[in-house]
């Protein structure tokens, strides 16, 4: 087994960080840090840093800490100490080597999952502080290569995967044709102004997971939803710029997304099973632009399925028999409170739901979120080693009978697949939509 990041001391060589660091001067580092702390940053940074009493009570909240045998360097406050705390204490006078380490910690040793905010007695938001560090490293041009490349894709194509303007409608038309062999009159209505719902997904769906578009189309048609998908950029709700600290680009992407929905005159945006995109359109991106709530309401897939099942618009032919367990994705559970709705849906479509522990708001992060999986192959093992505790949690629920692992979030899904393979869990990782598609009644 390759073990690229077993020890926290070993710095992983990443072209983005290395090349960026090579261009740095002490002066630029200092100026940039001070700019972020004093000009861009506000009271939260100051209050959090002043209020933290160094009690270490947040340590056990963090899966990295737990997975690294309680190594304090991986505790939430420990990460602040090694990054922002030091920058503040030294008034920005830190060197290149320090910044390299800080970039690595902020980008790849924190999933911005906010679990620690529930464990700190003061509710100190270490995830926020880590995103401040990411902002600094963005301005210093030392974001890890792979996620930076993704941000570039966003900037050109307004989606995560360099999906070209023609490839998008082409893919939808192809999926529409495929799905017509199952439902002959099925449509994926493109650019239908005045539909009730705009369905939005993330870049990987047209690129690698077209079957998810297929399944969504079947679901929409079976439930008789008045829906549309845009044929223009703006269809993608994902957002790595949010995670690299490139707020300006984040704003640009989100503006396009919401203005596309406004142009199509839809009443809601329903999004696929993605967590980080939910955070971006529901919380972070809209606010950067000045919208206190999403200007067009966002409905996450979990909530959408919940409504369809509750209103009887989707009927279940036969429930999924294999015992399932549910991984609560941070961004939609701790970030959106969808945990009970997810359980309602799963109970409606599966025979047997076995809870993992901890669960709901307290579930452990998948360790892929917050842009960490998007930092690519160099950090794959950092993710897997950083989440041994997830494997333990899953082994425990497997011992109680669960065979299928439901992860209603793209990042969770991919991250858990890696954990599944590496630790030999042999569970079936599925989206809710996979199962729903399988068990629902499909009209001819």
């Amino acid at each position, binding site marked *: 087994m390759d073990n690229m990041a077993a020890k926290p001391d070993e710095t992983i060589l990443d072209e983005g960080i290395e090349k960026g660091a090579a261009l740095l001067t002490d002066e630029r580092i200092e100026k940039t840090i001070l700019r972020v702390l004093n000009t*861009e*940053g*506000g*009271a*939260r940074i*100051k*209050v*959090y840093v*002043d*209020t*933290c*009493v*160094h*009690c*270490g*009570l947040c*340590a*056990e*909240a963090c899966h990295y*800490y737990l997975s690294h045998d*309680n190594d*304090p*360097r991986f*505790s939430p*406050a*420990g990460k602040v*100490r090694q990054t922002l705390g030091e920058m503040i204490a030294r008034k920005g006078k830190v060197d290149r080597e320090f910044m390299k380490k800080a970039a690595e910690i902020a980008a790849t040793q924190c999933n911005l999952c906010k679990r620690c*905010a*529930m*464990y700190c*007695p*003061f*509710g*100190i*938001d270490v995830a926020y502080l880590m995103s401040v560090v990411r902002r600094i490293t963005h301005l210093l041009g030392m974001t890890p290569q792979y996620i930076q490349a993704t941000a570039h894709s966003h900037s050109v194509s307004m989606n995560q995967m360099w999906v070209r303007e023609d490839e998008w409608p082409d893919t939808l038309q192809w999926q529409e044709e495929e799905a017509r062999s199952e439902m002959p009159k099925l449509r994926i209505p493109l650019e239908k102004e005045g539909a009730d719902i705009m369905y939005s997904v993330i870049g990987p769906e047209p690129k690698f997971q077209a079957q998810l578009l297929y399944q969504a189309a079947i679901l929409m048609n079976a439930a008789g939803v008045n829906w549309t998908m845009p044929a223009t950029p703006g269809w993608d709700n994902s957002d790595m710029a949010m995670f690299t600290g490139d707020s300006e680009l984040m704003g640009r992407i989100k503006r396009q997304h919401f203005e596309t929905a406004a142009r199509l005159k839809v009443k809601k945006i329903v999004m696929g099973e993605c967590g980080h995109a939910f955070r971006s359109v529901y*919380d972070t991106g809209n*606010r950067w632009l000045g919208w*206190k709530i999403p200007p067009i309401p966002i409905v996450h897939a979990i909530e959408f399925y919940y409504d369809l099942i509750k209103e009887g618009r989707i009927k279940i032919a036969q429930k999924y028999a294999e015992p399932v367990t549910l991984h609560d994705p941070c961004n939609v*559970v*701790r*970030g*959106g*409170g*969808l*945990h009970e709705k997810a359980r309602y849906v799963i109970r409606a479509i599966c025979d047997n739901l076995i809870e993992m522990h901890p669960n709901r*708001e*307290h579930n452990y992060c998948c360790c892929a979120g917050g842009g960490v999986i998007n930092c690519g192959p160099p950090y794959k093992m950092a993710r897997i080693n950083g989440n041994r505790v997830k494997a333990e949690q899953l082994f425990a629920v497997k011992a109680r009978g669960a065979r299928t692992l439901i992860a209603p979030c793209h990042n969770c899904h991919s991250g858990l697949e890696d954990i599944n393979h590496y630790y030999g869990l042999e569970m079936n990782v599925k989206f809710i939509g996979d199962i729903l598609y399988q068990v629902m009644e499909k009209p001819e």
Partner: protein
Amino acid sequence: MDALYRFLSGPLAWVSFVVFIAGSLYRLLSMGFLVRRKEKFIFSVMSWKYSFRSIFHWITPFASVNMRRHPVMTITTFAFHICLFLTPIFLLAHGVLWDDAFNIHLWALPNGLADIMTLVVIAGGVFFLCRRMKLAEVRYLTTLSDYLLLIMVAAPFLTGFIAYHQWIDYRFFMTLHVLTGEIMLMAIPFTRLSHMLFAPFTRAYMGSEFGSVRHARDW
């Protein structure tokens, strides 16, 4: 010594109260203004309901998951903070001072109880000290200032305790007691002791964000 004591318990006492109150107001107001200037969105998530829901959960012993995970810490920290807060205010000897200075008559703690509470603070201090030195995750975060703060907080209680029992040099320890107490008071707004000022606000913010945006619990 007498002159020094008179100075400490007279003018400097006033100074320390003024520094404490003015300093605290300054810190809170300047942070408030900073929020207004830079992070106005915070106001849009704030909610009384969720602020108090959160604060209530975190001032109730064992009401949060993390408190239940650390029972000894929870008991100690509650006992420590309660005694730290109540003893100086309701101590009989201080009651006289309240009366003299501000003409307020406070109910007073029985001396025996106050004595025990003082010991609780001192013991709590010792517990925190051991925790800082022994637990890796705490030691890693600890800087010299954390030890100094601990000493600063414990000192007025330790000196007061010694002075009250008049074991050795009463006047010396009395003077030291007044001095350390005043130092602590003045330090609150300007050191990490300011968590006393900011805690209600950080809690209220996180509580509101979890309650009104995230629709999730924060405890």
